[in-house]
């Protein structure tokens, strides 16, 4: 029965997500043509240069203005949604942010991409896939964690459709979104991914978004070169991500109206595109040029790398709806080309051509940004079906991830989540324990007292409830200390016998932190006070915390090892 439910969900979420991803790509390409962003559309008006120049500046600017206004007035979330929101929902089994916010975000993503903003399409596609999966949240079909699995299915199908890469789709869903490989999730996600592939390839016969053909690697030492390239792109990726994260808050300080922020970012894109049309939009043609030997001069490639990095950070930071993955592919491949030009052109090292370096750079950079080395390696494999190229890209990917993970974090998404207080840097279980707050485990019958209470009364009350310590509060309800009867023995009033509390938790203290601080603690309960004003909120017993820890541990193990 469960098998049927899971297969049904996988097929439904998979095909819906795949069709929606195709629709998004088509819509964007329609807008790109209509708004003179696509080269083929721009070239028809080549005889009217002023028209092309005007639209180049106006389209992204007005697009930005509309995107900003739509987010402000129509979206309850008031911002574009993306993979971090999906990860959060899946990890903590919460519903995604409202459907309306999701649809608005998808619409603005189509507009952002259509108007040529320097953002990517895969983030919105992942979110769109997740929306279809999230409908399973409403179903009660008796399968634990069904909604998370269904979202994983939607995401896998979207990626599989976009890249014509079903294996990469499966891995992306597990590596980035689900973060475990339970059979209960793996099987349906695989089914969904294959569904996406079938729809994209067999039914619609869509070409892959980019196709790479490469002769392979001719010199053994090139693997070492590619490893160095991995380190180079990692440094660039770290710079890019830091810039991206810094731009948002800075812009918010400078420009008060959010719609003007996006309009301004659009204007920057438009003005740059006057001289450098390659920065417009997803940059599919630029990505292709990167695989052709000598398509870019050295100076040109440096300018383009800088422009694309800054503009992408600006567009995403300002609030355009779109992801960072496609721009990452582009920037990474340009860095690869730059590296190849230096190595073969300037230093004169014989090499197997720009394509290998472009691909390795592309995947090294992108894997550092999305934190998915396996996915990136498999995307190369499925797109090129070339063993040599995949191995070269794999070397670049691992070296890039080594550096970026150490110096920045696992991925842009994880760092964005960490800024919202969800920290995956020490693993999935740690994040889960950290999501549980001790304040939710307060014991209702903990004993409190004031300094004026009679020691004997309090002692009797403690004995009646089986506690050994009472928490002493002042008149405002602030915690003063702990009273333990029989410590000095003879006091008549509680006030003369108050000792300091050895351990105090705040209302923000989470289970992970609490368990660490409990090490070496002797006593039956820990008081919890408000971090703001020190008001006593209650007490948690050590036994309750340990049970909560064990329960969550068991739940996670069940989820991660579920068969069907």
């Amino acid at each position, binding site marked *: 029965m469960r098998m049927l439910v899971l297969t049904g969900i996988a097929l439904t979420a998979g095909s819906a997500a795949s069709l929606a991803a195709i629709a998004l790509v088509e819509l964007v390409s329609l807008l790109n043509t209509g708004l003179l962003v*696509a*080269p*083929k559309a*721009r*070239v*028809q008006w*080549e*005889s009217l240069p002023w028209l092309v120049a005007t639209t180049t500046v106006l389209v992204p600017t007005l697009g930005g203005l509309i995107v900003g206004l739509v987010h402000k007035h129509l979206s309850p979330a008031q911002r574009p949604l993306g993979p971090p929101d999906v990860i959060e929902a899946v990890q903590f089994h919460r519903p995604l942010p409202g459907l309306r916010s999701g649809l608005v975000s998808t619409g603005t993503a189509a507009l952002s991409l259509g108007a040529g903003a320097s953002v990517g399409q895969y983030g919105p596609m992942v979110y769109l896939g997740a929306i279809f999966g999230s409908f399973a949240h409403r179903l009660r079909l008796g399968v634990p964690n069904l909604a998370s699995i269904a979202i994983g299915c939607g995401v896998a199908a979207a990626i599989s459709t976009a890249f014509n890469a079903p294996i990469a789709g499966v891995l992306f869903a597990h590596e980035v979104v689900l973060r475990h490989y339970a059979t209960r999730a793996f099987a349906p996600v695989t089914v969904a991914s294959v569904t996406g592939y079938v729809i994209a390839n067999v039914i619609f016969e869509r*070409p892959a978004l980019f*196709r790479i*053909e490469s002769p392979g690697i001719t010199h053994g030492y090139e693997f070492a070169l590619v490893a160095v390239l991995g380190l180079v792109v990692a440094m660039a990726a770290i710079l890019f991500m830091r810039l991206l994260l810094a731009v948002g808050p800075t812009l918010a300080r400078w420009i008060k109206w959010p719609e003007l922020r996006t309009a301004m970012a659009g204007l920057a894109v438009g003005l740059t595109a006057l001289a450098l*049309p*390659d920065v417009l939009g997803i940059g*599919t*043609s630029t990505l*292709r*040029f990167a*695989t*052709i030997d*000598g*398509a*870019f001069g050295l100076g040109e490639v440096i300018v383009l790398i800088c422009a694309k990095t800054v503009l992408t950070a600006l567009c995403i930071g300002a609030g355009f709806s779109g992801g960072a993955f496609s721009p990452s592919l582009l920037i990474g491949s340009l860095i690869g080309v730059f590296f190849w030009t230096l190595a073969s052109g300037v230093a004169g090292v014989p090499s197997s051509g720009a*394509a290998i370096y472009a691909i390795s750079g592309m995947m090294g950079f992108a894997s550092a940004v999305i934190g998915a080395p396996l996915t990136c390696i498999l995307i190369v494999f499925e797109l090129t079906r070339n063993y040599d190229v995949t191995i070269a890209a794999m070397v670049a990917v691992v070296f890039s991830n080594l550096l970026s993970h150490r110096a920045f974090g696992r991925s842009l998404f994880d760092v964005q989540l960490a800024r919202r207080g969800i920290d995956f840097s020490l693993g999935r279980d740690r994040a889960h324990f950290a999501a549980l707050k001790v304040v939710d485990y307060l014991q209702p019958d903990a004993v409190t007292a004031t300094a004026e209470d009679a020691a004997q009364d309090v002692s009797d009350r403690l004995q009646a409830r089986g506690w050994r310590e009472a928490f002493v509060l002042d008149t405002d309800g602030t915690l003063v200390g702990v009273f333990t009867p029989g410590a000095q023995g003879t006091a008549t009033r509680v006030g003369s016998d108050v000792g300091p509390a050895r351990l105090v938790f705040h209302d923000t203290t989470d289970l992970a932190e609490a368990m660490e601080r409990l090490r070496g603690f002797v006593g039956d309960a820990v008081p919890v006070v408000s971090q703001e004003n020190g008001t006593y909120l209650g007490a948690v017993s050590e036994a309750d915390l340990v049970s909560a820890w064990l329960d969550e541990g068991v739940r996670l193990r069940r989820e991660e090892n579920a068969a069907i």
Partner: protein
Amino acid sequence: MRRSDFVSLCLLVAAPVAAEDLTVVSWGGAYEAAQRHAIIDPYARQTGQTVTVAEYDGSWAALEARGAEDGWDVIDMLSDQARVACARGLLLEMTPRSLFSSETLEDFTPFGPDRCAVPQNAYARVMAFDDRAFAGVKPTRIEDFFDTDRFPGPRAIQRSPDGILEWALLAEGVPPEQVYGLLSTDRGLRLAFRKLGTIRDDIIWWEDPAEPADMLADGRAVMAAGFNGRFFDIAQRGRAPIDIVWDGRIIGIEVWAIAASTKAPDAARAFIVHATQPASMARFATQIPYGPTRVSAFNRIGINPQTGVPMRAYLPNAPQHGGRALVRDSGWYANTDKLRQRRFSKWLDGAE
């Protein structure tokens, strides 16, 4: 009988057109002769109409100048010319759904009828070589056209930017579906001309489409870019061992269209329905190697009555050819005419 054939027959019988006369405009030469034999004469016999065939140079400008005056009804056009003519209001609009069943519409390849034109046959710009020039390894890919180390010798190329720019990018490894997008950028054009520059000293230019086959035959060139029908002609007449490389073929589509000034719109439509039946297309393709634009017609193509050659292998869009194929983007051609000419002249002057 296929449903589509039935529909068209009904149209033929039911339409009150029997007394009307029709003027069909085409290109002349062997092409027109094949059309007469395969399509026009059977139509005249079936309907009892008198069909006059006129000749023109293929341009929409000629249609504008002579169409109304000379009483043109049905016109054979290149699809990009038809596109321009349609936009200028020179062609009669039609609704494909009223002429063809939905099955028939799906049968068309690589694209179906639009509001002004119905695809009728496919020709291709292909690369051909003189088999005598390469004793060992023969060229098999577009890359080989630009590889003068492995395949030395003069190349015959049309003195125009048509086709050769596409090949230049294909030879750089660009997948066919991205070629026109990339050629729309300045960088793409630069790269294409750079590639063309690598064989600059080996180029021998031609202007008349008959020349490249002759150049191969008389040894002035070892490889040539030209139209598949011309190469077929020379090779089949036994004048020279010319072989066609189908990789990188650029398929162009010929369409039927109706002049806006026609006095016999019903007869014109009936003619087009007749001409685009699988049987008509197949009859035409056995005369001359221009492929049908309907999938179902491929199975009917047999032996050329003059040479006895089975024609299927020589059709540019035959499904059995491997390699890369590009469908000539008529919209792009119509829009970039001046730009391409300008850049090409600049390159010829050595400034590109």
